[in-house]
């Protein structure tokens, strides 16, 4: 899927202050084309969050299997998480949910979106 420069600037201008990652941008455009705008609030991909930040999961961009696996571990839309660490070089992201620590591979972590508590 190609992103036209116009589409890119529209998305970026309507979400001021948000740092876009390549894949996230594509996802947003994809959703816009389908007619659903998921970028209503300020969101960050879990992989882009800073360590020790808290946040609430607002969207998980994945298939049913991935959502179910995450849900079983306690990560679902609405759960409050803390990012503990992310290993260098696109390594796994470690978050804590309740009393559990969960390691999430970088690919999956970049598809979980979080509203960060400032």
């Amino acid at each position: 899927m190609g992103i036209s420069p116009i589409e890119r600037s529209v998305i970026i201008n309507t979400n001021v202050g948000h740092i876009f990652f390549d894949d996230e941008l594509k996802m947003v455009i994809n959703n816009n084309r389908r007619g659903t705008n998921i970028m209503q609030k300020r969101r960050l991909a879990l992989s882009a969050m800073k360590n020790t930040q808290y946040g609430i999961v607002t969207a998980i961009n994945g298939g049913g299997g991935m959502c179910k696996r995450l849900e079983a571990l306690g990560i679902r839309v609405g759960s409050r998480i803390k990012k503990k660490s992310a290993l260098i070089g696109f390594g796994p992201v470690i978050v804590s949910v309740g009393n559990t620590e969960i390691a999430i591979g970088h690919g999956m972590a970049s598809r979980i979106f979080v509203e960060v508590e400032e």
Partner: protein
Amino acid sequence: MKILLIGNPNVGKSAIFSHLTGVSVTTSNYPGTTVQYTKGYLTYNGKKYEVIDVPGTYQLNPEAESEKVAADMVEEGDILVNVVDSTNLERNLNLTLQLMEYEKPMVLVLNMWDDAKHKGIEIDVGKLEKLLKIPVIATNGLTGEGLNTLPEKCISSKQTKWHKQSSAQRWKTIGNIVTEVQNLSHRHHTFIEGLQDLSIHPFFGPPAALGLLYLAFKLIITAGEFLVEYTTRLFDIVYTPFILWLSSILGGQGLIHSLLIGDLNGSQIDYEGAMGVLTTGVFVALGIVLPYIILFYLVFGFLEDLGYLPRVAIILDRALHKIGLHGYSVIPMLLACGCNVPGVLAIRNLGTRRERFITAIITCTTIPCMAQTSLIVKAVGERGGVYLALTFMTLFSVWAILGMFLKKTVKGNTPTLLLEVPPYRVPNIKIQFKKLWMRIKCFLKEAIPYVLGGILIINFLHVSGVIAWVGKLFSPIIKGVFGLPEETVAALIIGTVRKDAAVVLLEPIGLNSMQMVIAVVVLTLYFPCVATFTVLFKELGMKDTAKAVAIMLAATLAAGGGLNLLKNIYSPGVIIFVELVVIVILSLVIPSAFKPESKVTKDKFYKY
């Protein structure tokens, strides 16, 4: 009547199972210790009940093979015992409510009660009982506290009505229950939690893990060499007189004498060269291999119970993506360093066929078990450290190159790592020793018959001339490709039975140092031992096993032949360097695990 022990991974089901039935099973501190269900019996009030330890599952919608086992079993159970980690009530209740929908007699066990108390979590057991309408007990699985009422509660529990819910409703119900029964109090960060954070630290974590693994293996090998020296002396003092006496009874010669005792060298027995069942066979199994096995499982058991293995998986995740796997595959591989059989069994925890296939192949091909490692250290180590380094470096190169090759050729996808990281727990000494004893017993039962049998077979084959004949047959490969003498074929034949016995057979041949390295590498790679092969066959099926064998043979030819060519040009030290360079270049050339479009790099930020 069937009682099922069911719950999330790593909540202590196996520990409770051991307490109920008296059957010892392996317990440790990482999700996925139990991959097969284990059966045992509980006798209560004169009645016998079947107790089944079900592999842990987060949900009853299975995707991994081990979770599928759980879902199928629930249907068959008569009484469900849902074991729950009290420190994680909310997440664990998700499975509980799913189980409730089966409307079978059920007991809820709040395990790890002590941990919860330490963490400042209070749960109102009475209230929980009322809300769920099933008996609830608080226990501590490792010590067995609170478990004595479990059988009675199991048997007296009745069916309860529970309406089916969608997953959103279920989470809402859970939220309501948790707010009512759970009470959290604040407490300070403990020392152990500090260590926990440090071991997954973005910068300190990886070097710490590599350092720790290196230290662990260094410790095993150094202490092993030290112990073997003592066992050798012990054998000389205690066992030699017995053998000499037996030899004199047998008349010092003849078929039975050469089978049982082999070539004696006066009053000093060369235990490694004698080749008798009672001399070399017994000495190899008890004198050399056993000390290493004990040391390995001592160290490994500690790391396992501490909860370090999942952290190794996280740290190596990125590197393993290079060979088409994700971090969790490191657990089967580490288990395989002890013995390949549990290693291959543990691949069931991996989600897709592709992962299982790649992990199984590279594990059985390139990872020598501890029994073999101990003899490699002895046979190659005495020729000099550089040869030992070359042996392991070559095996590692095959591991890496084979992995990268398989990643490119095996179809399917590798899911991203998603792993619960258990908290560190200080290992319990009593349980440590129980586990160690279990593993040693298993080794003694499994290994000794094979080692003794292997040496017996090879003696027969020698006498009947089969070996000379097979040696001639395979001479073009063995001599031509590997540059080894024909006698090596004896070791290769025995290698299919038991690898440690095979390495011993290499010693009397009189190989030079480089030949020894090639022989050991070939011996490790070409075929798994019979025990591993059986499990591999069971796990992969006929077609994939055939593929696996073909890949192993190809890897052997490439590695053995390659070393044979390189040895004429370079010194061992340089070969190590060459191998290292090849791996680095290949890993850079072959693109990383992520598809190009999802690669996130700094210059690709779009910022307003």
